[in-house]
């Protein structure tokens, strides 16, 4: 069973996208459970991730946000929908920032939107993006938690911030997006994606995947 975490968007009252199994109790009235429509989904989408050993915002637009002094779990998102937007994006001084900049600058904003999701993660683990689902009003990411390599020096009680830049192959209007979700599991992406494929097949009325 994947552990589900969902982060409420920072701006105002928003409905949460209903998640997968185990997420009862928080569903919004506007979405069904389980979601019947998973048509807008990109498996293993183009993405780039940055790891910041300090618990601070790693990607931002305009003014640099103030880091949370209290060391609470951090979650934040940023949308980049145009080259103009891209020009306002800044990165913390971490390895890979230049490549992240390239990722944003080389996106074709007539066909895609970059969704940046950043949150604290345990130092010894890396979130691996499995898929992203979206509609005009929702964005939901799914990650598999994987161990970092055995020779990476890290401790179980330490946390980093990881920012994942996701290229969603659709033009989205961030003002219409009111609901965000992300789920994390310890299984592999293959398994997580297979589940969504089966559900998509079932919705489409075709026989399911395995078995």
């Amino acid at each position, binding site marked *: 069973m994947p552990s589900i975490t969902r982060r409420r968007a920072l701006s105002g009252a928003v409905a949460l996208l209903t998640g997968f199994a185990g997420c009862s109790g928080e569903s919004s009235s506007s979405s069904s459970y389980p979601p019947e429509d998973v048509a807008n989904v990109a498996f293993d989408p183009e993405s780039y991730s940055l790891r910041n050993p300090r618990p601070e915002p790693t990607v931002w637009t305009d003014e640099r946000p103030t880091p949370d002094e209290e060391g609470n779990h951090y979650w934040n998102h940023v949308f980049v929908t145009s080259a103009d937007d891209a020009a306002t994006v800044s990165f913390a001084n971490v390895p890979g920032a230049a490549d992240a900049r390239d990722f944003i600058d080389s996106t074709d904003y007539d066909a895609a939107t970059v969704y940046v999701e950043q949150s604290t993660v345990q130092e*010894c683990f890396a979130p691996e993006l499995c898929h992203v689902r979206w509609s005009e009003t929702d964005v939901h990411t799914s990650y598999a938690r*994987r*161990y970092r390599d055995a020779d990476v020096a890290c401790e179980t009680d330490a946390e980093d911030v990881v920012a994942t830049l996701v290229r969603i192959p659709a033009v989205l209007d961030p003002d219409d997006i009111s609901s965000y979700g992300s789920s994390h599991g310890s299984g592999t992406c293959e398994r997580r994606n297979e589940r969504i494929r089966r559900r998509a097949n079932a919705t489409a009325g075709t026989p399911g995947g395995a078995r």
Partner: protein
Amino acid sequence: MTELTRRGTLALLGVGTLAGCSAANPLGGDDETELDGAAIRSAVAAESPRIPERLPVGVGSAHLAATRERARTLLDAVPANLGPEQVPNGAIRERIRRKREHAADSFDRAHEAPTPFERLEAFADARAEARFAAGAWRAIDEGLTREELADEADAVREDRRAFRERWQYVGGDPVAAVRVHAAIERRVDRGRADLAFGEPRRYRLGNPLGVGEIAEEIERARVAVDDAAHCYDRLVQSVDEPTALRARFVDAREALRDAFEAEREALPSVDPAKPWQVEGVDVADTPAEAALDDLYRPVDPRHDDRWGEASLARSLLWVHGSFVGLAAFASLRERVADGETFAVESAEDVAAMRSDAVEAVRTAADESSVPVLTRTMLTDAADRIGFTDDRLSDVDDDVTAARIRREVSTYLVAAARARATPAASERVAGAIRSA
């Protein structure tokens, strides 16, 4: 699962710690009677019986020595104090360290085990856990890969296939044989046995823990088939002319099933959703309510699918447990109908219910004419008492009756099941012997 080990019981009953239990427990009730916690703690500190698992054919000392040696070798293959120099990734290091620690605990448990059979099981755990640690450590230290374990996995599969081919339901005394074959089934049953070990599951390729995971599976499968074969050989060697028993087991199961159903139907009508309801009696919020609920579970027709279980010997033990459950339920229900509610008003009440359970287990163990079946069931009853003792050993000074209702009910369940066991053993043994 018909063989309830102590850990199985723990899992069954382990619905959270006592702290905060009353709020979360729907059967917790609201009896706020305060009890003398110190007196309860003292009562549960008294000795309670432990009925160790035992196999009627014993376990050979050479076999035990070999499995012990293997466990020791695997433990020694991993440094006891892995540090960041050896495994920089703290999460991976911690996982390996814990597995090794669990293995060492199981190894120690094996040495303290009162019977060879329990020793065998503890070494099996130690080997599997140590093998995880050893496999993961070798992946880091020497670059061992999952692929390199494939041949070993094939060999285990082949040995298991070969064993299943030669294994037949034979024996001398058919009742003793049921117990031995049940132990064999648990080790080489299809389903468990046909695990696709060697296939990655939890960990990504390249993660040394994935190597550990597969190594553990292989070791578990290896020890299972070796122990099963050993038990089988002991069984066969223990009799001059082993006789075929399959047909007898099948016939006995059928006859017992008919008898069980007839008796269940003869029970006053029971609402499976509220098996504690007895006309004219209010047991709400008493330990009797929880105990009847617990005792009804194996009797509930909704769980009848276990009768047809392909594992023949284990299904006969299940049958035995069903008769125990039925009689225990009926007797407790009758007492409730007679007006007993088993309400807990003082620490002395708790102590009395506990000693009654302890006494019931001891008496049943002493009196049974079919110890091989009775012991198996009493192991579970005794473990329930031990587990409940553990839970009550740290109650607060001003604990309420509602808060420990579930625990107290477990004493009632253990007592009722223990008392019902000898007769059920005789009945099941009789059916097996006369089939």
